[in-house]
């Protein structure tokens, strides 16, 4: 007991020794939330590419950073309430005799499935690729759209 008082170790609740940890975890979460508001870059599924998904009452907007990938090397599919992105990033080898100083850009294949939170209308999906950013506009299914209810 003397040891505990001397070093100021928090008085752990013996019944639930993890409550202190739980409290710390919650504080950490609050702190992160305050820094990024509701955006938490870094918490991702671990599958290439990382995506940003936003919505408005009519649509879902799915965006991914895919620099150096041409539209022909990209495959976007919509099924049910899933969107699948797959493709290959090619980095053509340089002509002639060149010596590399740095090589950070990577080539390879990728494939990812994204579950959308609601039903979609697969017929109306539109995708565009500009400046290395893929943008997929996914219309929500009629029944998934929020409906304004007037009070009679």
């Amino acid at each position, binding site marked *: 007991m003397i040891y505990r008082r001397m070093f100021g170790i928090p008085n752990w609740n013996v019944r639930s020794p993890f409550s202190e940890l739980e409290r710390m975890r919650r504080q950490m979460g609050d702190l992160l939330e305050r820094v990024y508001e*509701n*955006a938490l870059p870094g918490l991702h599924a671990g599958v290439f590419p990382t995506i*940003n998904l936003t919505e*408005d009452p009519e649509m879902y907007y799915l965006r991914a950073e895919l*620099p150096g990938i041409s539209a022909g090397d990209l495959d976007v599919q919509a099924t049910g309430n899933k969107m699948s992105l797959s493709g290959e990033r090619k980095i053509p*080898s340089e002509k002639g005799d*060149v010596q590399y100083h740095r090589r950070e850009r990577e080539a390879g294949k990728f494939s990812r499935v994204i579950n959308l939170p609601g039903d979609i209308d697969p017929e109306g999906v539109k995708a565009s690729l500009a400046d290395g950013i893929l943008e997929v506009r996914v219309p929500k299914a009629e029944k998934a759209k929020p409906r304004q209810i007037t009070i009679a």
Partner: protein
Amino acid sequence: MTDAEAKELKVREKQELAAPGEQTRPGAVYTPDVDIFESDTEITLLADMPGVKTEKLNIDLRDDVLTLTGEAGSDGESSEVPVVIEYGVGKFYRQFTLSEVIDQAKIMAELKDGVLRLTLPKVEKAAPRKITVSAG
């Protein structure tokens, strides 16, 4: 290139820069991934800068220091509500010191699909010139 074809791309975190000199406007700053290679006549730099448009890209070379700055356009309309945010959008910034003397007049830059290709030709070495002496 055979093993490169079979490779699966892995997620790499966008590298956020701590304090890139003097920042006047708030916002995240990221380090673009680059390839740099050299041939006998030129140095080529390829940089991944997704979302950056030509008018928002700045390339500066002075006193052998090459600075790349680019600003990615806004990510969608303000009316959109975020659902899942996995990557941040902001500026790109990277600086390199060049050891070779570059022929500034012949620098070429091309931005395509979010990839910058910068060609920096080396200064041509003074070609030996033969001087003929004509007899008077």
